[in-house]
């Protein structure tokens, strides 16, 4: 049941109607029931596997909290890692969508790891209520692709939900609508605009098209995941349970540290707390100088390699993570001799240039995120080779366009697909307004007429994509 479907809307509405009539523990029992049904609708067999693993994890968590040795912790981490690799990277690849669909397993894994480590470090007491523990891991708005929540902050929010008043309903609706536009209008359209063969045989295409499709992919990926998060946060808000933000205009980042503060925030924070900080602490214990080469290089590299592996046990994901690690290392080395100035002291053109550089390097790294290394290399070479760029007949194209002819003839003029830029516009506008206002729901401050106009426009955009013959699943659903 895709979360952009009417079936999901009906499912959520039915769940809400019952949920708000219940009180106390019955609410959580109902939410767990709803969550298990939701999971079962994706793949009930894998749901059973995950439910069994959850039982084991519950028992292990109680042992970890009460034992003085680390044996159970390692056992728990090893068991969950084995399940992740087996179901996501071995069975799923073998069966090619056949046997079991490991929905949300990567997200489940990092939440369990955080929980076990937090218990071991004494940051929290174990959750003794099996219902709360299971619901934390299975809560249906976040079970597919996060956000990755920490048990110590999420379980209290879940057990004592906030009152859903008019303001919360409006905020939730605003999040859902923004998410739908990002996913269905921007991300799905951009994905559909990229020909299938572009990521299979890139050398068949001219450089300008490859560049435009890479731009399309970068925005599609962002809006796909940001759209998903926005929708599930809106849905969860209707239950009075806040979910964490995952994105904060990542393509406006001025450096790579900034980028990872804005991109997939819940994963970035997890990586920071459970990989980066421990590695840094460990290295500082051995090489006390902060500027020691190992202290500069290893923490970001190891952290981003782990990030790559979390996305998939493959060489191309490892390279994607490694590239981001490398970007951060270069940044750290550069800022050693010249500490970064506060943003408001940096000229606008330099800020814009920094944003452009970060975006371009991020987009290049997406190549190895999206395709195997060999194809990614061919794509890069084809895109950057001068000889691969075809001449663009701009003047005849403009003349034909002004005469009202040839609007569909851009391939004949060697021009990149103009629809890509048109589709990106609404997402870019949304991001710019959010950045300017410092509020993701800035439009809720508008008066009724402009707000109604914006809402009507959003509905119109959704209608424009509603008749298309294809719908693309969420990219991060695969992780």
């Amino acid at each position: 049941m895709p979360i952009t479907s009417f079936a999901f809307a009906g499912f959520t509405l039915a769940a809400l109607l019952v949920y708000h009539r219940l009180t106390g523990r019955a609410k959580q029992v109902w939410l767990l029931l709803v969550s298990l049904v939701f999971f079962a609708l994706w793949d009930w067999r894998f749901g059973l596997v995950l439910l069994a693993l959850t039982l084991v994890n519950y028992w292990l968590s109680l042992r970890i909290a009460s034992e003085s040795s680390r044996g159970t912790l390692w056992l728990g981490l090893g068991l969950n890692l084995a399940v992740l690799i087996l179901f996501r990277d071995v069975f799923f690849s073998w069966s090619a969508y056949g046997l079991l669909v490991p929905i949300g397993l990567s997200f489940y894994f990092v939440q369990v790891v955080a929980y076990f480590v937090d218990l071991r470090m004494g940051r929290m007491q174990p959750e003794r209520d099996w219902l709360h523990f299971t619901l934390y891991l299975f809560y249906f708005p976040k079970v597919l692709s996060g956000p990755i929540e920490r048990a110590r902050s999420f379980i209290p929010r879940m057990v004592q939900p906030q009152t859903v008043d008019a303001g919360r309903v409006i905020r939730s609706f605003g999040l859902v609508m923004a998410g739908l536009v990002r996913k269905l209008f921007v991300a799905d359209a951009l994905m559909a605009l990229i020909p299938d063969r572009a990521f299979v045989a890139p050398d068949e295409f001219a450089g300008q098209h490859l560049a435009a499709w890479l731009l399309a992919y970068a925005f599609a990926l962002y809006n796909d995941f940001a759209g998903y998060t926005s929708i599930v946060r809106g849905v969860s808000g209707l239950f009075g349970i806040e979910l964490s933000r995952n994105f904060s205009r990542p393509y406006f980042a001025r450096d790579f540290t900034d980028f990872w503060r804005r991109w997939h925030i819940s994963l970035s924070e997890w990586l920071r707390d459970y990989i980066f900080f421990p590695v840094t602490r460990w290295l500082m214990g051995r090489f006390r100088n902060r500027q020691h080469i190992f202290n500069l290089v290893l923490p970001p590299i190891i952290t981003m390699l782990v990030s790559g592996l979390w996305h998939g046990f493959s060489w191309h994901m490892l390279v994607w993570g490694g590239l981001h690690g490398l970007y951060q290392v270069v940044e750290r080395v550069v800022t050693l001799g010249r500490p970064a100035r506060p943003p408001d002291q940096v000229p606008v053109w330099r800020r814009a240039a920094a944003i452009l550089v970060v975006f371009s390097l991020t987009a290049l790294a997406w190549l190895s995120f999206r395709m195997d290394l060999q194809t990614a290399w061919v794509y890069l070479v084809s895109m950057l080779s001068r000889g691969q760029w075809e001449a663009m007949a701009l003047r005849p194209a403009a003349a034909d366009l002004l005469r009202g002819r040839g609007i569909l003839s851009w391939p004949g003029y060697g021009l990149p697909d103009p629809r890509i830029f048109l589709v990106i516009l609404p997402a870019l506008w949304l991001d710019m307004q959010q950045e300017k206002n410092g509020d993701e729901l800035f439009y809720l401050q508008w008066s009724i007429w402009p707000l109604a106009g914006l809402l009507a426009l959003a509905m119109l955009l959704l209608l424009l994509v509603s008749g298309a013959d294809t719908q693309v699943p969420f990219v991060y659903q695969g992780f």
Partner: protein
Amino acid sequence: MTGDPSFKLDRPIGRTLLLAILILLLAMAAAEGLARISLVRQRLPVSSFGNYHYQFEIKWFHLQRYVDQHGGVDVLLMGSSLVNSGIEPEQVNQAWMQASGQPALRIFNFGVEGLTVEPNSVLAELLVESFHPAVIIFGTEIRDYAANNGTETAQNFLNDPWVQYRQGQFSLQGWLAEHSAAYRYFLAYRNWMRADFAENHTQIIRRTGNLTSDGYDIENRVAEDPYRPPDPQDPEDAKAFEVFAGFEFADSRLADLESMLALESESGIEVLLIEMPVTPQFFDFFEAREAAHQEFLQIVSDRADAAGSPFLPAIPEDELPPDARSDRVHLSKYGAAAFSQYLGEWLARLFLETGLDLRQEGNAP
């Protein structure tokens, strides 16, 4: 829900949403008004019912223009691609006028690629309802009756919301496609965000332009050797061998033929059957070879006799010119001219011998 402490609406909500819906409805009404202006219709030549089969839609809207221009249609030629490029209405008319001494008929070719007798039996009903022709001539051949031939195309066509709406199954999509001009334009551009949209859209415009005003799709290609026997080693031929291995006349397809013939009694129109000419070598794909062909002729003529419908077997191969074929089953423009002549003369004979009325009411000479 309002009585529960976890859900408390402390102020009314929904005004903005209602206003937005109102704005949207007004915008849609304006779009509908625009879509009905002739200037817009000229600027946007392609509209759609959202049907998977774009050639069917090309023909439908082409027929609408034909009827607008000529005040109606007397004879509709139906069938698959064999009819689409195999019968030239203008040539049929020439032969008809010459042989019968009567004025021209309004003949339109509604042959659609890939449509077997199964979807054509439904399509015939829709065409009769919408355009009220006096005669339907259904061009058929043996492949129409193979249960595993053309099934996917048929299902895609028949499961279309507009087709189902026209058959009495209500759906909002079907209703909109039938009644809203703006929605039909929207459907024509519904795949605007697909990578292949420009290519497909241009192809639709090109194919529409290639049709003659009476629906004939000219086939300029001429096959080098259409009479070569099928080769099981050739991948294309191997596929055909597979489809027709163990061929039997499917009861459901024969029922579809009967349902088409029944239009004669149900709707008061004449239904004529003609066999579309394929090469003798085509029957080599069937285990029974020429016997399969003979069985086909027997079965179809029996059904036609039972319904009181005239049946015309295919033109003898030796009456076709040497460059008559574009492949084993399709006619080139030269073959189409010869076959159309043959058909026009047959229609004249029917008129002269039986007094068969081929004209739509109100189009008497």
